[in-house]
């Protein structure tokens, strides 16, 4: 058993502990209803179901889900802005957009009930983290079209936390308020927290002595266990993982509990499947593949079998915390992020894991992919830190070689490591983009 893990008595978490049979019954009832809703109200879904010869009444068990068509991000783009909405505009109360790195963004509309479902997930995530109405929660996710800020904001308020809606940016003020208001929990992207951590250290602020911070709720980008360990050892806080995506609501689709072994999916709202991304067939629990979600009770922009492009697996056994809802493994890679270097699949998270095995390197780095002649090249620029800098060239050369070897050990490809001056790499206050692929230009 792990740290104060069991909050079975908390009524907010009731659904986390229902029996598996009861959960499957809830899911099936909701599934039938949402499939009918989509068939009747979303023309694209109706068209695709008709093409496959599937009628809503054919869905008799949860396994029948495999007959349903998939939904992809490109569908949301093609149907921009409101083609996939399932209710009349009078029932929509909020829009959110997901950043469009290429072209148009995707738009999701929520009804009042959809927002309640989303916020239920956020509240249960916070409860899972050990956060209560005694906590002061600083929300340093961006507020606005991005779901991170408003999601944690309303979730925090619903739980009764005192919310400090700082949004992203103005790091000096973030640190000042954290200290002066006695903030106990912060929600932001892991990369932004590392930025806050660096700035605080630069100002000589000792997190352990000068702040009351105990929890970090981090999400919206893949991060590694090594980063988690680093954050925890520098600041003494407990780092929690919250997962979600705009297409199926926002943060609070899944969350780590205090056992920190995978993320529990709020599967009474978001039904998870893992598929083989090549054959599109579901795979057995425990097998790695692409994560797919069906929103069981969101009606504004309902999603049947939405392909997340995130790579994970369903962890087959029961968590030590006692929750019955299933777990997915930490998302360490997104199929979108995968780089193909000389025919080999490389994930930025693998490079990060390599970097973090080398002591003395704080995680400020950027990956540059290029092509020289017919050969793909990969260069990792790493900012030199005060710890790493000696007064001799040989120690820096050694550091450079050690990093290169550590990364090569993981990805089996030789890479170029370049040491650069501090603060010379791009910073982000929202989602971090750590890869520049010049081959695409």
């Amino acid at each position, binding site marked *: 058993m792990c740290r104060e893990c069991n909050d079975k008595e908390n009524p907010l978490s009731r659904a986390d502990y229902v029996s598996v049979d009861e959960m499957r019954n809830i899911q099936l009832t909701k599934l039938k209803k949402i499939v009918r809703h989509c068939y009747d109200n979303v023309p694209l879904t109706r068209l695709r179901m008709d093409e496959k010869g599937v009628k809503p009444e054919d869905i008799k068990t949860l396994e029948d889900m495999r007959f349903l068509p998939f939904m992809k991000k490109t569908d949301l783009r093609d149907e921009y802005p409101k083609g996939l909405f399932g209710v009349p505009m009078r029932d929509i109360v909020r829009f959110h957009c997901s950043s469009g790195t290429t072209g148009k963004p995707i738009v999701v509309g929520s009804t009042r009930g959809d927002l309640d479902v989303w916020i239920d997930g956020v509240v249960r995530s916070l409860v899972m983290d050990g956060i209560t109405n005694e906590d002061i929660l600083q929300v340093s996710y961006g507020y606005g079209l991005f779901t991170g800020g408003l999601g944690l904001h309303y979730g925090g308020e619903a739980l009764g936390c005192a919310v400090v809606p700082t949004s992203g940016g103005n790091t000096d003020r973030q640190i000042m308020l954290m200290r002066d208001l006695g903030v106990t929990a912060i929600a932001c992207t892991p990369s932004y927290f590392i930025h806050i951590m660096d700035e605080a250290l*630069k100002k000589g602020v000792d997190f352990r002595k000068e702040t009351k911070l105990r929890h970090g709720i981090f999400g919206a980008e893949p991060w590694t266990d090594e980063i988690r360990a680093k954050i925890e050892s520098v600041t003494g806080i407990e780092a929690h993982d919250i997962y979600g995506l705009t297409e199926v609501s926002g943060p609070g689709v899944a969350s780590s509990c205090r056992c920190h072994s995978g993320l529990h999916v709020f599967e009474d709202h978001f039904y998870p499947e893992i598929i083989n991304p090549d054959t599109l067939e579901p795979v057995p629990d425990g097998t790695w593949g692409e994560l797919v979600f069906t929103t069981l009770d969101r009606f504004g922009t309902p999603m049947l079998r939405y392909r997340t492009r995130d790579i994970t697996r369903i962890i087959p056994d029961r968590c030590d915390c006692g929750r019955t809802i299933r777990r997915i493994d930490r998302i360490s890679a997104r199929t979108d992020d995968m780089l193909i270097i000389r025919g080999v699949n490389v994930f930025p998270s693998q490079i990060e894991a390599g970097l973090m095995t080398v002591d003395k390197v704080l995680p400020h780095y950027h990956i540059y992919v290029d092509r020289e002649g017919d050969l793909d090249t990969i260069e990792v620029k790493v900012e*030199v*830190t*005060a710890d790493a*800098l*000696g*007064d*001799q*060239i040989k120690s*820096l*050369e050694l550091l450079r070689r050690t990093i290169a070897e550590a990364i090569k050990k993981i990805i089996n490809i030789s890479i170029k490591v*370049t*040491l*650069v*001056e*501090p*603060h*010379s790499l791009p910073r982000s206050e929202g989602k971090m983009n750590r890869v520049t692929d010049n081959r695409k230009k």
Partner: protein
Amino acid sequence: MKIKQISLFLENKPGHLNAICRTLAKAGINIVTLSLADTQQFGIVRLIVEDWERGRDELEKAGHVVNVRDVVAATVNDVPGGMADLLDAVGAVGVNIEYMYAFSFRTNDKAILVFRFDDADKAIEALKRIGADILDASTLFSH
């Protein structure tokens, strides 16, 4: 008897050394001497400045990563063989010189050398035995 040297990481690019000099100039901190070690990609600049603490703070404020090390400044007779005598003395006690550089000014027919030894105390002892003059910060900056 040791003096403080500050060293900084530097990318091997136009203007990067100047940025450091400008930062110190603006703060009114004089560079007494410096040495550069470089590779194709990057280098390390080592500086002896008056008021190293303020120098370090100003450079850190400007976003540089600064390292502080003890080095030894010794005078040497400005005659042929002057330096060889010094090196004999530290070599005899098995101390290794990690790097060294010279001061740009002379004083009374003596030159000043800055050493980074792997064992500074042992080297100082050996140098004193042959009568070399080891300078402390106040003597150094009074020149």
